[in-house]
């Protein structure tokens, strides 16, 4: 039973990581930028979602406004920051991205307050789903379900729609895709929009679980997100999803069984270093 509990919590968090970091994967695939400011969009989504939910009483409205806010902010970050420094060496966008993260986190602190926001009428609060001796937090089910549904929608779009196929072609060869009439700039905005929307949903879900959003809530995914895109094979969506699940489960068991000797962040670090030493260009097909 204990191991089942650990597995459930690991899977729930793996799914959440996948949803929260998909934007990093999409952006890295298209632009080769380590978009660490993505973590701030997670927090932005959580803050806006909770704030609107508290004010309006409707979780759906809160979620929609949160998604809109994160999408607008994500696209703005691309337009105002990354677009002009794409041709610079990789550390330039990386540090600019970090600057954006610091700036936004402190902005959240100033706007929403140090102590963050709590959810006033949390529908998932203390809700659990019981079958016999077995019970699961409803929020875990929502987290895993939400992630699976949104990833499925994204995967369906990427594999079965013309625009999705064009998007994947752009990831593969951006210059050439442009020659076939794919508007690469639009594809980039679409990637930022989709990734930011997923981050916002993930942010709201974590806020519902903790009943709390803090200015630095996004730190949960900032560094781990980078680990996931490397483990998952750089810009590869399925790979990132699997990597997220593996990391979530590894953390759950690592903390559960050896929490006194193992640090949560160190688990991702060891996995990352080992992976890169074995596959210096990341897991996945070598690009030609």
């Amino acid at each position: 039973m204990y191991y089942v509990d650990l597995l459930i919590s690991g899977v729930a968090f793996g799914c959440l990581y996948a949803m929260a970091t998909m934007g990093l994967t999409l952006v890295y695939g298209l632009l080769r930028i380590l978009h660490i400011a993505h973590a701030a969009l997670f927090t932005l989504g959580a803050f806006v979602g909770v704030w609107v939910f508290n004010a309006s009483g409707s979780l759906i409205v809160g979620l929609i406004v949160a998604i809109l806010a994160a999408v607008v902010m994500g696209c703005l970050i691309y337009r105002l920051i990354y677009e002009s420094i794409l041709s610079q060496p990789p550390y330039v966008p990386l540090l600019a991205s970090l600057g954006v993260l610091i700036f936004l986190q402190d902005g959240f602190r100033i706007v929403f307050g140090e102590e963050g926001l709590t959810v006033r009428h949390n529908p998932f609060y203390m809700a659990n789903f019981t079958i016999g001796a077995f019970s699961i937090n409803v929020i875990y089910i929502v987290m895993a379900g939400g992630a699976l549904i949104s990833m499925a929608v994204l995967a369906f779009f990427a594999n079965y729609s013309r625009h999705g196929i064009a998007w994947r072609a752009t990831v593969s060869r951006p210059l050439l895709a442009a020659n076939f009439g794919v508007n690469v700039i639009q594809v980039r905005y679409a990637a930022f929009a989709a990734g930011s929307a997923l981050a916002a949903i993930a942010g709201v879900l974590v806020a519902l679980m903790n009943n709390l959003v803090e200015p630095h809530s996004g730190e949960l995914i900032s560094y781990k997100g980078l680990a996931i895109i490397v483990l998952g094979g750089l810009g590869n969506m399925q790979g990132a999803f699997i990597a997220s699940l593996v990391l979530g489960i590894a953390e759950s068991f690592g903390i559960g069984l050896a929490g006194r000797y193992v640090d949560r962040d160190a688990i991702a670090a060891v996995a990352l270093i080992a992976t890169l030493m074995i596959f210096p260009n990341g897991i996945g097909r070598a690009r030609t």
Partner: protein
Amino acid sequence: MLELQDFSCGYGGTAAVESLNCTFAAGALTALLGPNGAGKTSTLMAVMGHVAPMGGRILFEGRDITNRPPVDRSKIGIAVVPEGRQLFGDLTVEENLIVGGYSLPVAAARAEQEQVYSLFPRLAERRAQISGSLSGGEQQMLAIGRALMAKPKLLLIDELSLGLMPKMVDVCIEALTRVRQNGLTIVLVEQNTSRALSIADHVYVLASGRCVMHGSSAEVKDNTEIFEAYVGIH
């Protein structure tokens, strides 16, 4: 159809092509020949909009397209079969074709796709296969098919025969001969000069970024001395 007027282009301020004047007649197959580094690929890439122009103009059907972004060039009817095929390796055969026809309306693209499959039945057999796993010849077929998907008026082909078995080259050339019957204009960059001379209507010979000689295939073949000095017959 396509005209380069006193055209120069290059990378990071260094000219790869200088003062080039070429005319590519509608419906003709024109070959660009020359040794490595002569500027053939740069010329093609400049026509696609990937090499910065440094002077002169590119006219397509009389319109100046020198500074148009790559995205527009496919819409006005230019398509490319790039050197080394450059397929979207993670995508399936069919998906590569879908991207090729991205600028067409959905129904037209679907019709075009059937055309390509009838041109290359091998591709139809392998439509669900990941394109990165195809053989070299199949990849070249797919690259040509992908370019044809956009119903181009002008097709640019870079190194058709490179790394292919002669049998596969024949299949590709046969396909090109077939599509030419619909009035397609083709610009072919080739290392295999004898093959190129056998199918081309007109030939430009480049060396060090300049045009050193041009004329009909027959004229160029007759001027073997000058031609061999620059290119050498393989």
